[in-house]
């Protein structure tokens, strides 16, 4: 099994790191500043945990389905799931919530219920995001709002584990969800994750891409006053600042999209317990995918306790969502850089690939 040198050569130096943060702080040799992840000193070991858990060092999609859910997926677009809904927070909706505030509400609930000892979240603001280890519902709600850069949030997970926290929870982008699952399920050479399988909750976000730290420069140059919120609706990126609203086209941001995101197959956090995204039609609501039993139970509980209001997912939107997810996958699989098994490129086994093409064709372009 490869180690730090390979992580550096295959992932970091190839600009394939998505800044999930999982390798950061595993040891004193990998550090981060302003979302950059770097090996700062050679550790000298040939095999390493850092390589094993990196979401970009390769994953077999089917094998991961089996490891996490014990079964294969039927839907190649959205992965294993038990149900799809729209939802929004009703009690104590986080004031900075991106959409329906479901992510924050569930994180808070998991903390209150003792389902997790702490939640690994992304706090701060659009220009200055940072990892937060929330231990209370209020701390969790304070992290609401999407930061569109690749924030190495999981760095703080490592610290939490070292400090002896068991069953921590995570809210993360799909790559971060994968990193958490790899840590749970890989045979690891190091002792860093000696409580395998012990995540209390893995809540995944939808994510089609994240932005590079260079985006900060772009933003500071364009927006001089305080930024309140950023969103990327279908019409294009919007920044709400104190003095007004700034709008761009997705094309303006494209130069800042992380290279690793272009090779990513997972836009809906396919290995999360529960995945949350936008609805693309009503900013007051979220799309919610219950995937694992744990995710399903949490959603039920939230409903029972009146934490969330949950509705049926509009039937007419379902194909749109699936098409968006499938389009991304097909785009990746057809890219020249995509060479299955190479760093940054997940492996889709032949039977999955076949289904994928059928389902994509079935949906119509």
């Amino acid at each position, binding site marked *: 099994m490869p180690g730090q040198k390979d992580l550096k050569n295959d992932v970091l130096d190839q600009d394939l790191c998505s800044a999930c943060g999982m390798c950061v702080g595993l040891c*004193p040799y990998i550090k*981060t500043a302003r979302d950059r992840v770097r090996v700062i000193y050679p550790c000298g070991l040939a095999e390493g945990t850092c390589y094993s858990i990196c979401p970009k060092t390769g994953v077999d999609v089917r094998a991961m389905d089996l490891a996490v859910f014990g079964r294969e997926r039927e839907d190649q677009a959205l992965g294993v799931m038990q149900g799809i809904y729209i939802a929004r927070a009703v009690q104590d909706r986080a004031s900075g919530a991106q959409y329906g505030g479901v992510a924050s509400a569930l994180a808070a609930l998991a903390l209150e219920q003792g389902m997790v000892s702490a939640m690994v979240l992304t706090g701060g603001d659009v220009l200055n995001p940072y990892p937060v280890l929330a231990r209370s519902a209020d701390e969790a709600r304070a992290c609401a709002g999407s930061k569109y850069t690749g924030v190495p949030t999981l760095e703080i997970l490592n610290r939490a584990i070292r400090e002896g926290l068991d069953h921590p929870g995570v809210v993360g982008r799909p790559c971060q969800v994968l990193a958490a699952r790899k840590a749970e399920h890989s045979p690891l050479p190091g002792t860093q994750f000696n409580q395998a399988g012990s995540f209390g909750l893995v809540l995944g976000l939808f994510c089609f891409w994240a932005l590079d730290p260079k985006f900060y420069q772009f933003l500071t140059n364009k927006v001089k006053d305080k930024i309140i919120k950023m969103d990327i609706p279908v019409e294009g990126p919007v920044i709400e600042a104190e003095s007004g609203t700034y709008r761009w086209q997705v094309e303006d941001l494209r130069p800042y999209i992380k290279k690793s995101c272009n090779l990513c197959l997972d836009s809906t956090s396919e290995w999360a317990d529960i995945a949350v995204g936008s609805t693309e039609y009503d900013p007051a609501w979220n799309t919610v995918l219950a995937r694992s039993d744990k995710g399903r139970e949490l959603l039920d509980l939230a409903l029972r306790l009146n934490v969330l209001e949950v509705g049926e997912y509009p039937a007419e939107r379902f194909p749109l969502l699936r098409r968006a997810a499938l389009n991304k996958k097909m785009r990746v699989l057809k890219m020249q850089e995509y060479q299955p098994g190479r760093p940054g490129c997940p492996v889709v086994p032949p039977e999955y690939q076949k289904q994928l093409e059928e389902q994509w064709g079935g949906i119509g372009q």
Partner: protein
Amino acid sequence: MTIMGVCCDKPGVKVALTGNESIARGALEAGVGYASSYPGSPTAEVLGTLAKLARQFNLYAEWSINEKVAMEVAAAASFTGLRSLVIMKADGLNVALDFASALAISGCRGGMVIVVGDDPGAHSSVREEDSRNLCKALHLPVLEPASVQEAKDVTREAFSLSESLQLPVVVRCVTRVCHASGDVLLGELAPAGRRPAFNQGDRVITFSIKLHALQEQKLARASDWAGNSRLNSYHGPGDAGRLVIASGPCYMYALEALEMLGLSEQVGVLKLGVTWPLPEKLLLSYLKTAAEVVFAEEVEPFVEDNVMALAARHWDEVGKIKFYGKRNGQVAGPNGPGIGELDPDVLAQSLSAIWGTPYTKPALPAHQEIFDLLGTKMPDRELALCAGCPHRASFWSIRTALELDGRGGIVLGDIGCYTLGIARTGYYLLQTMHCMGAGVGIASGLGKLDCFGFDKPVITVVGDSTFYHAALPALVNARYHRASFMCVVLDNETTAMTGHQPHPGRETTATGEPADTVPMEEIIRGIGIPYAVQDPYDVEAAIEAVYRMLQQQGPRVLILRRACALAAVKGKQKNRVYVDPEKCIGDSCGCSRFCSKVFACPANIWDAESGKARIDEAVCNGCGVCATLCPQQAIVVERTV
């Protein structure tokens, strides 16, 4: 005896002193009224000693901001008729050179002695500059003590010579004399001090070419004086055909070498206590009888060249002489002629080769044998920052921030403890290292190369004492020209390298009087450069601070402030730091012996037997930085407070 010995009022008594204390005693016997210095090895302790006695002897002593200022303030005292002493290392004379060359023209009034500590072998310096060549260019007389006793005698003589010539006199003292200890026969302490006078109409100026002529006359007088001075002496047979001309401690080495070769009866040794101007008449009288002359001096062939020139001028009187020295490679240590120190053994080997006298290295004394034996078993002690040194934490932060930044930023440095940034313990960071403050100037230069497409970020590190000493002009230059670089002040709140002397950022002066502190923040703010202050022991925050500032443009300063570890624990109970072997994962992934192998505080050691890290508690200064870096929290700090 130390300080008690220096001020002991019992003429004729012998007390044990170091060379530096002996110089201080000589100054007291000469009635010094004013002393100034910038700390530098090997002469750093002279002023410290005088400062302790300042009140008792009614003298003024100060650690000046740099050597040039030190020389100026001492000259001022001399202009008023006081006797004054200024002390510096060879590098310091370079700093003071501009004023020194002017002062040599204007001359002085009260006796003024410039003690210059040369460091042959560069034991505690970055170079082994021989300051005599500079002194010759300056037209200043140079006296060289050969022993601890002479350090005192020469210093006292130097005052009276200076006063009679109205010209500063240099006492050039090398490390082996400064740091040696020996019995010193005390002379009388000077009676109570003079009163300064500088009246309207008094002029001490450098203008007019006539003064150059006067300089030459003064030197001629000095040469005459030297001819009769007790500081030069001869040891050996009359009319010796073979002669060794020696200066400084090489005189002692020469006597010993001849003894070992059994040549003491046949070879004469002429010791020059005055090496500039040469005591020409004296020298000629010995050259007349000599057919072979060997030079024993450190470092450069200074006496050698000048005596050979003298002989050439007087070829018809001195006849045919064969000269042996550094120029023909006959007198050379292991590193080659004119490089490094001499010692009795090196000299004996050289003389044996010259005269064909058989020489075998004397058997080692028993303890030496043991030592050598041990030497082969013990690893070489590397040049390393002390345990707990805040500079290590600072260097680690700088290194990490540069790696995170990823633009291949470069790091410049200069002189101080932090010079060790060139070695492993400073993670090999420093890429230039020249003289006090040079890093800032070089950074200011590199910081303007963006117009040629040079886009690497530049960091220069400078110590707190160096900051005051020499960094300011370059910082002003940088601000004025908008040079882009980051200056990191490694502020350990003292002049650590030379023994913790105070500087303008401190609350007291050399003599312990309260000072009007000049905080560096105020200076930097005044120059108009943005700055931040951070504790390097908080490594995470320090990395962040360095990284953030790296992203900025223009000149900027980051002060990494934390007291020198040695000063911090002095007289206090240290925190106890130890490794919990249960938690330490040592070799395995997730650490890979980070503390002992990478961070490498000398107290972080690896216990191969148990496969765990350990703290060498005798060495550890209890800073706790390694504990914050250990990935397993395996290092425990028991705080004493």
